[in-house]
């Protein structure tokens, strides 16, 4: 590579890294406990258990579940209903003051699927884990904070790519994985930075890129909703008027949706007006039955007033990317060993960031000291 090209790549690597490193260190550190969110939740006794009942106990209609949740949180409106990830007999209902909020003040009710009794009100927006979550997601600054961290993620990707380009000239005379311990600390840090950076390369790129996509979740879902509404408006008779849902409407929507796609499982019910639905429809999100298709959800729209089923527009590729970006960023799709691997790779990434910072600082000190030494020599 021409020396000039090399200098440009070195400049790109230095500045993209310097700008994003502190933010990335915060993301790596705050992300570490978040990998084990479920385990910590269970260990601290925050998890809610359903009472044992005979197998085959009939389930309460979903409308009764929602009614119980609303009674628990008077004045709030239901946004979403979904089953607990580990306990299919537990429904979680998310509520807020309006259906179109940013959900930062949302509350939850955990309702027994069989008795429709409220078993607890899980609180996700306070405590240490929530602090880490917000530090990881938006720096307590909402959508602006999210997009800012996404931009830092883009710098990280640039820094990784330029780092790979610079890896070649450094390794011209070295075997892979060489750590020169008999040389100066500077060289040892450099070898470590190069080795850890190159072995964690693909993982860091995947977690970085999926993290960026996750910061765009709101934008992606809103665009899909707009597309959905445009199609509905263009279809005669499909656009539903906003009307309060009748009793039984939730259960009916789910029953109809599941009957229309017998191979699917219920993932979530979105109430009319929320980000996943339309102002006049429930969106029943259905997931596939295989481990892979379970990650991908497709909505069925059900008119809230008439109970009529409407074919939703197919999921655009942006939403597919978003849905796949969640497991690939969280590392929660391969049981506990995968989470441990995620944590260890996260720690390696912290060393890469830190060693990069140390290398920059030492070099800078040396460059600053050099002219003074030269000056002392001449006097």
């Amino acid at each position, binding site marked *: 590579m021409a020396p000039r090209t090399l200098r440009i790549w070195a400049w790109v690597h230095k500045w993209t890294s310097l700008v994003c490193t502190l933010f990335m260190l915060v993301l790596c550190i705050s992300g570490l406990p978040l990998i084990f969110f479920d385990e910590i939740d269970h260990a601290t006794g925050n998890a809610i258990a359903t009472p044992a009942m005979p197998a085959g106990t009939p389930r309460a209609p979903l409308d009764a579940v929602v009614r119980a949740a609303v009674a628990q949180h008077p004045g709030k409106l239901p946004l979403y209903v979904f089953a607990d990830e580990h306990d299919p007999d537990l429904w979680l209902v998310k509520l807020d003051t309006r259906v179109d909020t940013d959900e930062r003040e949302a509350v939850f009710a955990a309702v027994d699927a069989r008795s429709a009794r409220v078993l607890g009100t899980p609180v996700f927006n306070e405590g240490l884990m929530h602090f880490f979550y917000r530090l990881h997601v938006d720096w307590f600054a909402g959508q602006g904070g999210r997009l800012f961290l996404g931009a830092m993620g883009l710098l990280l990707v640039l820094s990784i790519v330029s780092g*790979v380009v610079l*890896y*070649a000239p450094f*390794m*011209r*005379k*070295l075997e*892979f*994985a060489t*750590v020169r*311990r008999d040389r100066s600390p500077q060289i*040892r840090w450099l*070898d*470590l930075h190069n*080795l*850890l950076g*190159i*072995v*964690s*390369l*693909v*993982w860091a790129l*995947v977690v970085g890129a999926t993290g960026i996509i996750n910061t765009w979740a709101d934008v992606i879902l809103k665009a899909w909703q707009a597309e959905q509404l445009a199609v509905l408006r263009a279809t005669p008779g499909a656009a539903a008027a906003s009307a309060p849902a009748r009793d039984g409407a939730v259960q009916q929507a789910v029953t109809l949706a599941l009957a229309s796609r017998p191979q699917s499982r219920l993932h979530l019910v979105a109430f009319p007006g929320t980000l996943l639905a339309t102002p006049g429809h429930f969106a029943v999100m259905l997931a596939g039955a*295989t*481990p*892979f298709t379970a*990650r991908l959800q497709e909505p069925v729209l059900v008119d809230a007033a008439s109970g009529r089923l409407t074919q939703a527009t197919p999921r655009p590729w942006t939403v597919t990317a978003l849905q*796949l970006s969640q*497991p*690939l960023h969280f590392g929660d*799709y*391969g*049981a506990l*060993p*995968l989470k441990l*691997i995620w944590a*260890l*790779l996260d720690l*390696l990434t912290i*060393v890469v960031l830190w060693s990069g910072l140390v290398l920059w600082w030492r070099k800078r000190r040396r460059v600053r000291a050099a002219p003074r030494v030269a000056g002392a020599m001449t006097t």
Partner: protein
Amino acid sequence: MKGGERGLWAIFRWPVGLGLLTMIGLLAALLGDGPWDALSWLLLAAPLAIGVGGLLRASGSG
């Protein structure tokens, strides 16, 4: 390749190999459960082990 200098392939064959293992490992757990998860752990452990090995050597205990 001239004396003592390594070509691009010599420099990048290990990183490319580990990158492929990582990529297959990341996808395996997404495609299935059980044995697929185990395959994923095994493949992702490779870059991790080499990284941890380097870290131990650099800190002087390996």
